[in-house]
């Protein structure tokens, strides 16, 4: 029996220029089981899904679905073999009805045009019998909750009745916690009908809750297959995911004086997070951890005034601050090194000097005209201080490496003598050597008395750089953990909900 598989990927190797995304990876899912797939960002989960979907063609390996081996697998042949994908994004037409959305691209035609009545009856019956919700087929998508939209998306993939394997990619990421149950119930019902399910998620609590077996990926390899998943399996999974080889690239944390600095009280945006209160002292580095969908990115945008806060207040050294726009934030001395610096942080066709002095033009200008010499002098000083390579103020920013681009963003804000630095994913797309330099810079800023906030999806980075880490989940801060004595495993466990973070905080 155990040799039977709904689908299996064996010995898959997939290379991209310069990177081996998958190396001899395998994944086997049995009929009628819910199989979890976990791994950190970059572990190869999405690559393996795209290999299964026939989007990527692997360099080596076999793809078997049911009893047929597909070589090569194409999106059409995979679909014909009964594999369906539920994408993370909810792509639906807002002003379409449930019926129209379920049958989008696979409409049925009767004698007088579309068979609306028949399609509606089938869509309603499918949602009721297979997914366990009663919804009128003529309701518009924009009047549905997020969980209901997810179910419509699932119904669209499965309505033809030919599905044997369903791949869920982060199905609960956009959902609030009470909505998760609705989707979980639907997945259980699908399993009862003998459909094999591959469940990909960052939320380990969901994985241990719903999965029968779990495969763990790390750095493109299958590092473990767990057969008996119970609620207690979370820590084993984390151990397998994180591994033990963390390079020693973090600076020594200096001892610093911390004073009252920047504080946020009761901040809400009315949608993605609520009641956030954090404070970061002068000379302190506060980390913010949280999965995609935890409200972390939205929180950072709101602190910087990019999106409007619904309620809440900001203070610096006890004095209230008004932050309604990014310009106000900068004037208050709060600066952001954005996550997508290529789009948000830099004017790429401009030179290093021009980028560095964008925020301080008024200082380098005489009667409104730019003083080129002053610009050049201040830039050269910054280039030296930050070790930007090449050390040429007239180099075009686009041609710099990721790490050096990051330094240019920093140089601009340092020229502005900011007091609060917010780093959003500071090392995404940055090579290992530059990473260490950026960590050193962050450490230096704090040592110089600045308040630093680092928001990151990399637990190793947070543990290594920060003094304290606030963990966000589903729009709230569920714990604040001091990093001293905190293991990366514990942090990942708290971020993914594998352990109750409140208990952790109490214990430490």
């Amino acid at each position, binding site marked *: 029996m155990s040799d039977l598989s709904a689908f299996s990927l064996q010995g898959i190797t997939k290379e991209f220029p310069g990177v081996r995304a998958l190396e001899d990876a395998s994944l086997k899912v049995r009929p009628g089981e819910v199989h979890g797939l976990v791994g950190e960002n970059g572990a190869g989960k999405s690559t393996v899904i795209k290999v299964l979907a026939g989007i990527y063609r692997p360099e080596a390996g076999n793809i078997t679905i049911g009893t047929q081996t597909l070589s090569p697998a194409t999106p059409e042949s995979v679909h014909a073999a009964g594999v369906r994908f539920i994408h993370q994004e909810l*792509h*639906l*037409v807002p002003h379409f009805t449930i019926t*129209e959305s379920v049958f989008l*691209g696979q409409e049925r035609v009767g004698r007088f*045009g579309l068979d609306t009545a028949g399609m509606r009856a089938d869509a309603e019956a499918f949602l009721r019998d297979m997914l366990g919700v009663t919804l009128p087929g003529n309701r518009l998508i924009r009047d549905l909750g997020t969980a209901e939209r997810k179910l419509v998306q699932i119904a669209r993939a499965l309505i033809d009745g030919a599905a044997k394997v369903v791949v869920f990619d982060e199905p609960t990421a956009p959902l609030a916690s009470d909505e998760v149950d609705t989707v979980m119930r639907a997945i259980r019902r699908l399993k009862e009908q003998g459909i094999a399910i591959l469940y990909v998620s960052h939320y380990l609590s969901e994985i241990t809750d719903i999965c029968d077996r779990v495969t763990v990926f790390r750095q493109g390899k299958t590092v473990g297959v767990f057969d008996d998943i119970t609620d207690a399996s979370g820590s084993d999974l984390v151990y397998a995911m994180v591994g033990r080889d963390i390079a020693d690239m973090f600076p020594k944390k200096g001892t610093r004086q911390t004073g009252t600095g920047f504080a946020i009280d009761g901040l809400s945006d*009315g949608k993605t997070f609520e009641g956030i209160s954090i404070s970061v002292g002068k000379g302190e580095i506060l980390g913010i951890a949280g999965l995609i969908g935890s409200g972390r990115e939205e929180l950072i945008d709101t602190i910087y005034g990019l999106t409007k806060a619904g309620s809440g207040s900001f203070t610096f050294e006890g004095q209230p601050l008004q932050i309604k726009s990014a310009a106000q934030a900068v004037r208050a001395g709060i600066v952001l090194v954005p996550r997508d610096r290529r789009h948000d942080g830099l004017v790429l066709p401009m030179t290093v000097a021009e980028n560095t002095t964008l925020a301080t033009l008024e200082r380098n200008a005489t009667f409104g005209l730019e003083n080129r010499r002053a610009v050049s002098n201040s830039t050269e000083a910054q280039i030296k201080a930050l070790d930007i390579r090449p050390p040429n103020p007239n180099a075009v920013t686009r041609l710099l490496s990721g790490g050096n681009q990051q330094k240019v963003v920093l140089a601009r804000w340092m020229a502005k003598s900011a007091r609060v630095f917010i780093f959003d994913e500071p090392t995404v797309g940055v090579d290992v050597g530059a990473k260490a330099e950026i960590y050193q810079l962050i450490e230096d800023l704090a040592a110089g008395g600045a308040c630093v906030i680092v928001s990151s999806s990399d637990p190793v980075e947070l543990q290594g750089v920060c003094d304290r880490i606030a963990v966000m989940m589903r729009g709230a801060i569920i714990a604040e953990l001091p990093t001293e004595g905190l293991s990366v495993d514990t942090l990942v466990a708290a971020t993914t909900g594998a352990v109750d973070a409140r208990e952790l905080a109490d214990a430490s």
Partner: protein
Amino acid sequence: MQADPTRKRGVTDLVGSLPLIIFACVLIYISFNAPNFLTLRNLELILMQSLPVVLVCAGLGAVVMAGGDDVVSGGIDLSIPATAVLSAGITAVMLSQGWPLAICAGVALLACLSVGLLNAALVTRIGMTPLLTTLAMFVAVVGVNNVITSSRRIDVDHPWIVALRAQEIAGVPLGIIAVALVVAAIYFALHRTRWGLNLQAAGGSRDAAEISGLPVSRLFGQSFVLASGTGYICGFFVLARGSGSSPGVQDNLMLEMVLATFLGAAFSTRRVVTMWGAVLGAVLVAAISIGFKSIGVNVFWTGLIKGSLIVIVVALSALAQRGR
């Protein structure tokens, strides 16, 4: 956590139907001041007058449905009125040179469809914004038409064209019946076939349509060709209404087309541009134009009033969109 969704919906609905309320008020005001306005005779006149606008609105409706109703980045085709006068111009010139109507109509059809295909190629292949592309196309096509007609009036008295204006079948003007049939055919194609529903999906959410495997660009391109087709047919009604081709018709046609199509969204329960909405909008706009004339509003003021109405209608549609 959020504002009460039903109340928010209520406000959005109110904003969505405001254009209709404004129009209703204007019409009521007119009917009080022009006693003959609400007679059957006058309603027939309004319908006859609205026929060219109805046709181009049906075309624009299709493009907006396929490209999305964002006025700046979504689907829009401003060149349809120019296509209509091109169709009228070619037919008028060739008729005056003694060619049979079938040949004239055939040449005009080729010219109009190539405008539609060119629009489609520029927007979907090269990726230009529909607003700018079709505005440029409008200017260019009007220019071509000016060359063809030497920018002068050409009378047309071909019996078939005259019939569109004067012939009646069982008491109903032939023109109204013909346009009703064309509109019914386009309605069926857009709202009752797989193709039409897919086209609406492409405009409703490009991502959703693409992920469902729909050929979004091709559908969008096809809507431009359909639109040029409605412009082509409209050309004959322009000839019939004006007893020939005369320069300058396109400007008013364009104004009324944009106004009517976006006004039409207020008729739809989903608050989106639909075929019926666009057609009803066209009739309403014709009613207002005739109404203004019958209460003696200065022609120069009519332009200002129509312009303001466009701004209000489009602004309200943007507001209603933000609310959802």
